[in-house]
């Protein structure tokens, strides 16, 4: 209907005169722009709303240091599972008296690994990955990288595990 009106107003021999085209283009841009503004104004709060727990866990995983109370009493030759930020980690008190802490997330597919006291190795039950219990090196199986190592400081009442930057 609009087109008919315009046809009457403008020269019928040139229905798409330059003014006509630019007016249409202006209106189109305006409508698309307004739509984009609305989509943004509604989409942004909705995204932040749905993303809220992600933001919270990102904040939690940004932890640089964890203090484990009484972990200094860990028996020789055993290991302790703890949470470093949001992911599981291992603290091992080796038979030679040394302390090691590393991520317990397998570098292959993200399963949680465990310390095998008998074999003195770290193994992953999901796909058979094996890591060195002293260094975290990937020894056999599918894991492509060593486990992430942390710094360990043993105090009188606790153990402090720190991310190596």
């Amino acid at each position, binding site marked *: 209907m609009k087109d008919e009106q315009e046809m009457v107003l403008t020269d019928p021999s040139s229905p798409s005169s330059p003014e006509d085209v630019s007016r249409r283009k202006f209106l189109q841009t305006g409508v698309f722009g307004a739509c984009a503004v609305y989509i943004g104004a509604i989409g942004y*709060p*909705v995204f*932040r*709303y*749905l*993303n*809220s727990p992600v*933001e919270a866990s990102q904040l939690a995983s940004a932890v640089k240091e964890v203090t484990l109370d009484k972990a200094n009493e860990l028996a020789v030759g055993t290991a302790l599972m703890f949470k470093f930020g949001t992911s599981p980690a291992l603290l091992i008190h080796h038979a030679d008296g040394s302390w090691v802490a590393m991520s317990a997330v397998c570098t292959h597919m993200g399963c949680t690994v465990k310390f095998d006291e008998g074999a003195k190795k770290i193994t992953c039950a999901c796909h058979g990955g094996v890591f060195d219990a002293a260094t975290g090196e990937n020894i056999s199986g599918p894991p492509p990288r060593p486990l992430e190592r942390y710094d360990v400081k043993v105090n009188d009442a606790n153990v402090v595990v720190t991310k190596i930057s």
Partner: protein
Amino acid sequence: MKLETLKADLVERLGLEEAIKLAGKKTVPVHKHTFWYFWGGISLFSFLIQVVTGILLMVYYRPGPEAYESVRQITYQIQFGWLIRSVHNWSANFFLFSVFVHMFSVFLMKAYRRPREVGWYSGIALLLLGLTFGFSGYLLPMDELSFFATKVGMEIPNAIPIIGPPIANLLRGGLEVNEFTVQRFFALHVVILPLLYMPLLGLHLWMVQKHGNAAPPSEEAKEPSQRKTMPFFPNFVAQDLGVWLIVLNLISLLAALFPWQLGPQADPLAAAPEGIHPEWYFMSQFAMLKLIGRVIPGLAGEAAAMTLFTLGLVLWALIPVFDKDKTNTKRSRQVLYFGIFVILVLLSTTFMGFVI
């Protein structure tokens, strides 16, 4: 060109020719009361906002013993949770308000007459379901106000002789409002009511498409050549969308400037707070219960008020049976007076509810 072929293919495969033909032929009467035609669309739009924000709230809401804590998290911890919740509340109120305006404008335009009776009946059912949506949703935060509102509300089924108390107990999941009640009301609010509402809404909208908008009697009296219309598509649809945009802005503004509050957690042992009253859409019933209770004290008064209300509702729903078509002007006038009386009673008792 490819897009055009795709469009043509889809139209053919989905059998859309009929719908396009219908939409192309459909017109909307143009007269000085055309404004009131928008209120059905406004109700529909605020309902759609309810659906979207309701789904978003379900992402974090936990019914049962954690209900209050989860709403507290939504309101104070989750990013923009307060806004989503506030929009849900404001659009719920806006929804019921526009449904009432829509219903009374349909009544005054006599749009319930032949052949539009099904539209009227389905509309009444949608209104009752809408009120149940409001009642069940109000409890979900489990704060002080919602707890007592539900406690009082459940006294209404409780007052029905013999069958009332077991019904109220079943709805509550106990003798008192508790965490089982929240769980049940949640299931009602998000599963059972939508399952009932959606098909009825489909029928209601189909009836509008089928019979079109009714013109008020003053227009009907004119010569057909004197009546003005506009095409439903695109003219009326474009105006409808414009109105929806205004409603969207209004609800967003209200939700952002007056965020919905969360009261203290419900304490089953605490006394009801002073001046407690229901939401405005239940205020009329509330005031009538109070007023009649003053004249006839005790259970008899309660029964009288509820009988009066039920009777009024039944009469209101059956209006198309009494005022069938334009041939009987005496009945038509009587119905009009009855309707005006109902509107006045509802308005005045609602107002009184806030004062007394």
